[in-house]
């Protein structure tokens, strides 16, 4: 890790090469996330961007935060996203219809304008800045340095964070909880009364016409007067009427 930490001040050739390889990958991931129609593809593109950012953090003398990025962000948060995507249906993709006309064009124009403003402001602020580097701050090790600041200077913020996490956990439980209403439970007596109530046919439904002329469950059962018994048809199986050719003897009978 000492070789990584030594890079802190000015940019070395190796760091520049890594940046020029990974920065386009991060951008491709970001654009792909917005572009992809399928939400699962979006999530995977975002994972790509986050992994590249994790490498950037490690490059910039922050091995601890880089590892946290890869483990917590890419490993936990994005997998939570994928989990919810699978729960609510993978095919919940976007419709291509714009609800507001010209919204996409306006959004793109706003984005370009925003990027322009951001770049001018940052260019003025950062352009003349010299990089100090984290060599001195990381002298006792990056993780140790972060721990020292976190438990002295930022200890109050750190404690408040625990309250935030507890609130989030309780809130998620509350939001995801579905209350079961006791009155909805049907007793056996009520089920029996409903079965023999007027208008309900208490006997089991007739089976399909399997083996009468065909062995398909789609064939309707016939009543003695050769009319179709409507209750023998399943709502899930499409009705099938046999053609003359299908009903004709196959020549396999004895």
């Amino acid at each position, binding site marked *: 890790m000492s070789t990584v930490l030594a890079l802190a001040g000015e*940019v070395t050739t190796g*760091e*520049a090469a890594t*940046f020029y390889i990974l*920065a386009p990958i*991060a*951008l491709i991931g*970001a654009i792909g*996330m*917005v572009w992809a129609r399928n*939400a699962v593809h*979006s*999530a995977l593109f*975002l994972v790509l*961007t*986050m992994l590249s950012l994790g490498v*950037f*953090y490690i490059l910039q*003398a*922050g091995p601890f*935060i880089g590892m*946290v*990025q890869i483990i*917590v*962000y890419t490993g936990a*948060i994005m997998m*939570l996203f994928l989990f*919810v*995507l699978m729960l*609510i249906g993978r095919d*919940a993709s*976007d419709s291509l219809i714009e*609800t507001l006309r010209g*919204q*996409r064009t306006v*959004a*793109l124009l*706003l*984005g370009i304008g925003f*990027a322009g403003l*951001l*770049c001018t402001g*940052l260019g003025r602020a*950062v352009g003349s*800045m010299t*990089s*100090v580097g984290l060599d001195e*701050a*990381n002298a006792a090790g990056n993780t140790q340095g*972060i721990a020292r*600041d976190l438990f002295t200077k930022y200890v109050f*913020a750190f404690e408040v964070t625990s309250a*935030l*996490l507890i609130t*989030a956990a309780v*809130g*998620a439980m509350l*939001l*995801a909880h*579905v209350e079961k209403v006791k009155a909805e439970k049907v007793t056996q007596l009520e089920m029996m009364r409903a079965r023999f109530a007027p208008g309900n046919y208490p006997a089991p439904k007739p089976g399909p016409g399997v083996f009468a002329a065909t062995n398909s469950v789609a064939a309707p059962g016939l009543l003695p007067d050769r009319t179709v018994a409507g209750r023998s048809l399943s709502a899930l199986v499409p009705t099938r009427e046999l053609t003359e050719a299908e009903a004709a003897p196959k020549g396999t009978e004895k």
Partner: protein
Amino acid sequence: MDPSYYIVLSAALFTIGAVGVLIRRNAIVVFMCIELMLNAANLALITFSRMNGSLDGQIMAFFVMVVAAAEVVIGLAIIMSIFRTRRSASVDDANLLKY
């Protein structure tokens, strides 16, 4: 190359995330765009930390990650409960407060 190149990349990622929030209709993808914006801000914080020679930026990025984790848990739970009642994750369908 200068460390400020990282800032340019961070600005580009933030812009892409903001445009994504405006364009996409699927609530989960909108949420992922917000995550991208948080990540872009983190990259800027870590670059500033390196430029100024102080670990404060890295600690701020760490806090951003903690808050983002809490936010994701709550946000996904809200999306789940909306999906349970409306059978849809599109932000256009959740418009009852409009009328």
